[in-house]
C-alpha cells in the first residue's frame, strides 16, 4: 500500500479526476482539477498550495553536526548562519552527484536536511567517529509549499510574524493561527514562495488556516503537473528525471557531477575536505565535459514541421520527462530530459545535457520532435536558465495583491 500524506483528508476530496502521482512511496495529486492549467497560472498569477510532505527530512544535531554536513555536501555549511537555508547537492567519492536538497540551520547546533531520496544510511556512514544525532523526521513533519506573487500577502494574513524581513533562502519559526510552524522562503517554482513545516498532527488545521487566509487572494491547491511546468521554467533540475543518483546508476555514463548539472556554484572547493573534493578539483581544472542548459525551440520551425502534414503545432501542455536527442552540425551533441510548453512565455522550452562545446547560450541546435509518427528535427537555441526569473522571487517587502 502506498502511503497518504497528513494532508490527505483535505486533498483527497479535491481530486476531481482521481489523478494521483507516486512520490517517495506516497501519493500526491497530479492535478486537482481535470486540467492543470488553472493550477499552473495560480503559481504565476496569484498563489498555489502544494503538499510536499513526501520529501525526506532529517534533523541533525550534536557537537559535530557542522562537520558531518560539511563532509557530506558540497556547500560550506560552517558559513551557514542560524535562520539561513542552503540549497546544495552532495556527491560520492568520485564527485558524482547522489542527491540534492536543502540544509536549514534551525539553531546554532541543529540542522534540517531535506532530500529527494532516502539518505539516512549515507548520513550514518559519513558520521563514523563524529558526535552527532541523526533523526529521520520524514513522517513526523508535514510540509506545504505556498508559491506565487500573492504568497507573502496570504501568509501574512495568517501568520503572527512580520514576513517582510524574511529574505530569500532564510527561515523563521512562527505561528499560523496558533499552530507552531517553521516558514522558509524557499520553493521549487522560481517564484516568490514559502515552505511551511509543521508537526504532522497539526497538518489539517494548517491547511484549513491557509486556505481560509488565501482564498480571497486566489490561493489554489495545485498538483505535480503544474509544479513540473513551473520548475522547468525556473530551470530547476529533478532527480531521476534530469539526472540519475550515482547511488542508482548502473554505469558510469549515467552519473553526473555538479559541474555537469549547472551546480558548479554550489561546490565550495575552498572547504577543507568533503566527499568528492579531489575528483571535483580535477574536473574544475579540466573543465566539465557536459553542461546542463536550457533549450528554446524555434516556433517558426515547429510550425513548419507541422504545416507539412497540415496540422497546427501540437504543444506539450503537460511537461514531458524523456530523453530527447539534441543535434548540432552533423551529429548528436546532447539530450533533453525535461521539456514542455511555457504558457507564460509562449515558448517551447526544455532542459538538456549538452557537450560543453555546444553549450554556449545562443548556440543553434536542433531538437528531435515526433510529428505524426515521424521523427523530425526542430530548430532550437541553447539558452541560459532560468527561463523566467521574476524580481519578486528574491525581492523584499511590498508585492502581493
Amino acid at each position, binding site marked *: 500500500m502506498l502511503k497518504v500524506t497528513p494532508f490527505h483528508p483535505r486533498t483527497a476530496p479535491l481530486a476531481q479526476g482521481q489523478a494521483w502521482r507516486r512520490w517517495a512511496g506516497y501519493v500526491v495529486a497530479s492535478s486537482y*482539477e*481535470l*486540467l492543470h*492549467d*488553472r493550477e499552473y*497560472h495560480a503559481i*504565476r*498569477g*496569484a498563489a498555489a498550495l502544494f503538499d510536499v510532505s513526501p520529501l525526506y527530512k532529517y534533523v541533525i544535531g550534536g557537537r559535530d553536526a557542522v562537520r558531518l554536513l560539511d563532509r557530506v555536501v558540497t556547500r560550506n555549511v560552517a558559513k551557514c548562519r542560524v535562520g539561513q537555508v542552503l540549497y546544495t547537492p552532495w556527491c560520492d567519492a568520485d564527485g558524482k552527484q547522489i542527491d540534492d536538497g536543502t540544509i536549514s540551520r534551525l539553531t546554532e547546533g541543529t540542522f534540517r536536511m531535506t532530500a529527494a531520496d532516502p539518505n539516512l544510511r549515507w548520513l550514518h556512514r559519513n558520521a563514523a567517529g563524529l558526535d552527532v544525532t541523526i533523526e529521520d523526521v520524514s513522517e513526523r513533519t508535514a510540509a506545504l509549499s505556498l508559491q506565487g506573487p*500573492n504568497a507573502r500577502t496570504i501568509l501574512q494574513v495568517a501568520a503572527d510574524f512580520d514576513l517582510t524581513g524574511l529574505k530569500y533562502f532564510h527561515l523563521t519559526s512562527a505561528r499560523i493561527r496558533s499552530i507552531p510552524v517553521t516558514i522558509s522562503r524557499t520553493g521549487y517554482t522560481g517564484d516568490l514562495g514559502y515552505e511551511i513545516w509543521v508537526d504532522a498532527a497539526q497538518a489539517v488545521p494548517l491547511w484549513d488556516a491557509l486556505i481560509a487566509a488565501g482564498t*480571497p*487572494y*486566489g490561493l489554489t491547491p495545485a498538483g505535480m503537473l503544474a509544479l513540473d511546468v513551473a520548475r522547468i521554467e525556473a530551470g530547476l533540475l529533478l532527480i531521476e528525471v534530469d539526472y540519475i543518483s550515482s547511488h542508482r546508476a548502473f554505469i558510469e555514463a549515467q552519473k553526473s557531477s555538479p559541474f555537469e548539472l549547472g551546480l558548479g556554484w554550489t561546490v565550495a572547493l575552498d572547504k577543507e575536505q568533503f566527499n568528492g573534493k579531489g575528483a571535483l578539483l580535477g574536473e574544475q581544472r579540466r573543465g566539465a565535459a557536459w553542461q546542463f542548459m536550457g533549450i528554446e525551440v524555434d*516556433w517558426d520551425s515547429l510550425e513548419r514541421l507541422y504545416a507539412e502534414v*497540415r496540422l*497546427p*503545432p*501540437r*504543444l506539450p*501542455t503537460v511537461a514531458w520527462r524523456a530523453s530527447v536527442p539534441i543535434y548540432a552540425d552533423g551529429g548528436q551533441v546532447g539530450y533533453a530530459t525535461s521539456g514542455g*510548453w511555457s*504558457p*507564460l*512565455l*509562449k*515558448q517551447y522550452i526544455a532542459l538538456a545535457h549538452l557537450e560543453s562545446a555546444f553549450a554556449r547560450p545562443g548556440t543553434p541546435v536542433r531538437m528531435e520532435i515526433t510529428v505524426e509518427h515521424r521523427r523530425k528535427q526542430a530548430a532550437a537555441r541553447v539558452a541560459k536558465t532560468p527561463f*523566467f526569473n521574476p524580481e519578486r522571487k528574491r525581492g523584499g517587502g511590498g508585492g502581493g*495583491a
Partner: protein
Amino acid sequence: MPQRYDAIVIGGGHNGLVHAAYLARAGKRVLVLERRPRVGGAAVTEEIFPGFKFSVFSYVVSLLRPEIIRDLELPRHGLEILPLESTLTPLPNGDYLAMWSDHDQTRRELCRHSARDAEAYDEFGQLMHHMAMAVKPILGMVPPDPTSLSPGDLLGLARLAKHFRRLGERHFHALCKLMTMSSADFLDEWFEFDGLKATKAASGIIGTFLGPRSPGTAYVLLHHYMGEIDGAFRAWGFAKGGTGAISEAIAAAARARGTEIRTDAPVARVLVKGGRATGVALESGEEVAASVVVSGLDPRRTFLQLVEEPELPADFVGDIRRYKFRGSSGKVNLALAELPDFTCLPGVGPHLRGAISISPSLEYVERAYDDAKYGEFSRRPYLDIVIPSMIDPAMAPPGKHVMSIFVQYAPYYVNGGWDDAKREAFGDAVVDTVAQYAPNIRSAILGRQVLTPADIERILGLSEGNIFQGELSLHQLFFLRPAPAWAKYRTPVRGLYQCGAGTHPGGGIMGASGRLAALQVLKDWR
C-alpha cells in the same frame, strides 16, 4: 522643430504600441503620441471605484499573436494571460447550458439537452478548426490586391490560391458558406438545441450592427473562433491586471527599445508637404517632424480629421466616408460586494470563472437586434459577462468582485440621441436582465459605470463607438479594409501609414495590424 524622429505613431492603443515597438526594434527612433493620460486605447485598466479595477472597455484577449509576445518579450515586461475556462448560458426555464474546458465534461452537459448536438459538436469543432486553419495565414499577411499585377501582389495571391486549393472541396465549400451565410442559418445546419445555437451565434454579432439572422455574421463567428492561445484554437483568456496590463507590457517593451511615449499629447493634424507627410502638429500648437507618420486611429479620424481633404483623392475620401462604423454595443462595469448567485446554478463555483452569456435563444438575440434596428437599445440585450476578480483577485478588494458586462445592442444612433437619462435607463435594462437570472445582483452593486457607444466615442475617439474601428463585415475586410487599393497600411499621402483595427486583419487585442504595418513601413524604408 527641434526634435526629429524617424517615425511618429499617432495613438497609443495596443496596435500603435506594437507598431512602435517593432520599429524601435529595427533601430528606428520612434515617438508615440497619445491623447489620453494613459496608453492602451480601448485596452486599459482603470480604478473606477476605489479598490476596484476594470478592463474598462476591451475585456478579454484571444488573438494576441504569440510571435508578438515572444518578439517583444512581453512576459518579462509583466504580461500574463490567464485562461478563461467556461461559458455558462442560463436558460429561461431555470436550467442552464455550461461549456467547460474539459471536452468530455462539455459533451456530457450537451447530452442533457440534445444527444445529437453533443455528437455534432465534435464534428463542428473539427470543421471550425479547419476553417480557422484556412483563414489563419491571411491574418499574418499583408493583404494582396487581386486587381493588381505587381509581383508582390501576384505572389501573395498565388500563395493564397495554393493554400485554398489544398483545403479540399468540402472545406472550401464550408468556407464559402461561412463567408456568406448568417450565423443562425449556419448553426441550424448543425444543431437543434436553441440555447447552444444562440450562444454560438452571439459571437457572430459582436461589434457589428447585424443580428444572428443577418447574412455575413457567420464570418464574424469564425473571426472569434480563431481565438487562439498557445496554438489551441477557441481559447480565450484574461490578462492579469486587466487588458491595460497588455498595453503596459507592450509600452514597456517599446520603451526598453528607446521609444518615447508622450501622453496627454493630442494630435491636431498631419503635416503634409508636396504630397508627403513631414510630421504632426499637436493641439498645443507644437510641431514635431518625422520621416514617417503612422496613425493608429480609425480611418475616419485619420483621413477626415487629421489630413486636409485636398491632399487625398476624391474617390478615396468617398470610400472612407462610406466606411461603416455603426457602433452597436455598450459596456456596464459593476463593483460588487458579493458574487452573483445564479438561480440556475446557485452558489460559488467554477462557472463563475468563465464567461456568462445571456443568450437563451436565437429569437431572444434577434429580438434584441430588432430593438436596435429601429433606433432603441435592446430592452433585453445579449450580455457577455465576466468576473475578472474570480481569476485575478487583485482586481478587487479581498472578498469583493468586479463584473464586466459587454452589452449588445446599444445603437450609436439611438432615437433622441444619448443623454444621461438614456444612459441610466440603458444601465437599468442591463441590470434588470442580469437580475432575472441572478436576483441578488441589485443589492450586491457598490458601483456602476455605464458606457454607451457615444461615451466610447467621446472617451476613446472610436468613431460612432465601434469597438473594431469599423464593422467586420465582408465588404470591409482583407484587401477592402479600410478602402479598396489602400489596404496595405499605406495611404494616398506618401510617408503616412495606418496601423489600427481599421486595417487588416481587424479588431480584437491581437496586435497583428500593428506588426504587419511595421513590417510594411520597414520594407518601404529600404
